């Protein structure tokens, strides 16, 4: 900062003082912190993939939907029982851990290779039916199959649902 004594330094000093009030708003920081959480979730899922079945095409028509629900409930119950048994015996030592706030870990819905190509993802909170989760091959409590379940989905920039975790 050369002092050339031509009056310009006064202008620049005044500008420095004025600029000290120019900062991004608080919302920007919150958005970035949300991005930090998304990056953390993406990496945590990529590091410990618990892969569920790929999504299936949705049934149409009442009869097919009813069958789908019944099948889903049965599959869910079976998966839940078998999953819990195997989970404790086989997968528990390597199962993904929840975060520092005690939230459930994300369950990957796609193969681990799919994460390798993803640089970013968004967390989308939503309520879904048990039947929708069953479509993804996830265990669903038959007694709650028609109840909405709060969940967070990790979605890639192209809209691919990478992982899910239950928040209740």
């Amino acid at each position, binding site marked *: 900062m050369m002092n050339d004594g031509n009056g*310009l330094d006064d202008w620049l000093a*005044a500008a420095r003082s004025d600029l000290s009030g120019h900062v991004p708003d608080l919302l920007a920081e919150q958005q970035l912190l949300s991005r930090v959480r998304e990056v953390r979730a993406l990496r945590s899922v990529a590091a410990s993939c618990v892969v569920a079945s790929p999504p299936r095409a949705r049934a149409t028509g009442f009869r097919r939907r009813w069958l789908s629900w019944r099948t889903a409930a049965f599959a869910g119950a079976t998966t839940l029982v078998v999953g819990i048994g195997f989970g404790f015996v086989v997968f528990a030592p390597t199962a993904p851990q929840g975060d520092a706030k005690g939230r459930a870990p994300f369950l990957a819905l796609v193969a681990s290779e799919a994460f390798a190509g993803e640089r970013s993802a968004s967390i989308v909170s939503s309520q879904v039916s048990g039947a929708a989760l069953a479509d993804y091959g996830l265990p669903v409590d038959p007694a709650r199959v028609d109840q909405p379940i709060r969940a967070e989905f990790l979605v890639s920039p192209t809209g691919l649902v990478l992982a899910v975790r239950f928040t209740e």
Partner: protein
Amino acid sequence: MAFDPPGCAPPAFVPLARAVGAADDIDEARELQSALSGDEAAFSALYRRHRAAVYRFAWLVTGSAAQAADITQDVFEELLSTSSRYDGSRGSLAAYLCGIARFRAYRAADPRMQSVEDFDAVLEAHVEHDAPPLPSDRLERTRALQTLYAAIRKLPPVFRDVLILVELQEMSYTETAAIAGIELGTVRSRLSRAKAKLAQMLNECRVE
């Protein structure tokens, strides 16, 4: 780190980049690693230390608060991305972030531009001028500063960068050279010409 030209007294003020959080005393590489691992507190600390410098640079170049906010957001998102190529041994994080902001600000100004070096073709004659006195009245001073910012934005970018980084962001010549990708001596010559041109423009505004 700081480079003071021979024969010039060091600045009497504490540079903003140093005053806000004393980044030199912090292991920013480690803090960045923690942030990239998902440590929100580490990221917040980094963000709060550098957000103002990035935002102000973007605002001074674009003249738009909305664009400056978007660029600031983009800069820190890029830092978080796996493609972030920050290497602590090659310079400070502040310089790295301002370098990204510089590139993005010019992309925002002209999306077709791929390299800030395109502007190196711009040359101006070196003319010495005295700037008019700064008004003492508060309202007039506010108007005068808007005139100053407008004049800075009209400077050829190769001069504008150096002026903003050294005079308004209070970065060292070394950091400025790293951000602009030019030699130390070029920083000095461009700064001198930028100030001369700016003084000339302020005088012309007063005449008009």
